[in-house]
């Protein structure tokens, strides 16, 4: 087995190690302030019909101008956006019905705009990431623009917040007038007597949602398992990088470099997208996300339409269509 896939096969446990402790600490911080469960979202009129569109923040969202095309075509169904795609949505006049946030780390607040940011962050994450290119060009100006957008549209937004979410993110959402609907990440097998998930549910009464490793997959789960949508389209869900991306511009580059030294390039896994004929590549994390998504799609009571028009997420469990095909017939 190649190195990238070998690492990917160990990321189930590694993810628990990475986020369980801080996620549970964040849940304890949020607990006194939790008012509404994510299950209440199913009772609200969030778009018409039984179709939803999940907006993830992979590079195809910009390469394929997916949001411009969505705004031009219109969509009567439910729009669920990941936190890192929120600003791009609002810039294009797309106000999602629900925004999903899960990550326990404080830097995620940047996706909602940081009003107090005075200097560019020492961490180059936002200058390097592929999810919203405007942050790479001018970090400070991009942040000011996001603050203005989120302040303007915040009162119209509902956030499906994992109890693992960073307190700074939750504070920012509240300050911008967003309404919060809470859920627990499913950390482990809830049937085990020593289950962390079971204990967390006992403490706060909230449902546990199987997140699939990342906020994009968690948003797709929310669309069909919480909102009950039977046809779910996805855009911007690449789980990989376009052929011309330098390794230095990938999300886990510093970690792979630290771990593997000069061998870091061996950790990337290459796929040919059968629709585009393009060779995309993933790092071990995205490779794991892809495997998990395909496993979950086999079990889901919904049809999944990948309208990303790029990336590495393809298989018999998923229909690959253009965005317009889904918007018109999905």
């Amino acid at each position: 087995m190649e190195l990238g896939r070998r690492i990917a096969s160990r990321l189930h446990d590694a993810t628990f190690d990475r986020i369980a402790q801080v996620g549970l600490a964040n849940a304890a911080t949020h607990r006194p302030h939790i008012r509404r469960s994510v299950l209440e979202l199913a009772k609200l009129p969030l778009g018409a019909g039984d179709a939803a569109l999940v907006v993830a923040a992979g590079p195809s969202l910009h390469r394929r101008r997916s949001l411009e095309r969505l705004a031009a075509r219109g969509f009567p169904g439910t729009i669920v956006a990941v936190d890192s795609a929120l600003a791009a949505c609002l810039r294009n006049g797309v106000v999602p019905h629900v925004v999903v946030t899960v990550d326990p780390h404080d830097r995620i607040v940047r996706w909602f705009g940081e009003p107090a940011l005075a200097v560019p962050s020492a961490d180059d994450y936002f200058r390097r990431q592929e999810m919203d290119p405007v942050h790479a060009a001018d970090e400070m100006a991009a942040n000011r623009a996001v603050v203005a957008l989120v302040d303007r549209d915040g009162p119209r937004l509902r956030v499906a917040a994992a109890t693992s979410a960073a307190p700074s993110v939750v504070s920012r959402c509240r300050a911008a007038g967003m309404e919060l609907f809470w859920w627990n990440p499913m950390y482990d097998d809830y049937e085990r007597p020593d289950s962390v998930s079971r204990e967390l549910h006992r403490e706060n009464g909230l449902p546990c949602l199987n997140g699939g490793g990342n906020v994009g997959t968690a948003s797709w789960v929310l669309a069909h398992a919480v909102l009950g949508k039977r046809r779910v389209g996805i855009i911007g869900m690449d789980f990989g990088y376009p052929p011309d991306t330098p390794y230095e511009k990938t999300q886990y580059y510093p970690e792979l470099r630290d771990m593997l030294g000069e061998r870091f390039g061996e950790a990337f896994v290459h796929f040919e997208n059968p629709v585009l004929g393009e060779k995309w590549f993933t790092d071990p994390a995205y490779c794991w996300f892809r495997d998990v998504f395909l496993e979950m799609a086999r079990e889901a009571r919904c049809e999944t339409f990948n309208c990303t028009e790029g990336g590495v997420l393809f298989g018999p469990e998923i229909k690959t269509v253009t965005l317009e095909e889904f918007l018109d017939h999905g």
Partner: protein
Amino acid sequence: DIEEKKEDAEASATDEFERKALSRLGGSICFVSKKGFLWTGGAAQS
């Protein structure tokens, strides 16, 4: 016995190093295989 314990300690240290390194590569939320999508606290909805 000493050699075996030394090897065990080295293997354990390697495991710990690998585990810490791998944890930096993990996702932002867990995945639990074969446990459905939503557990509300009886079977998870699938």
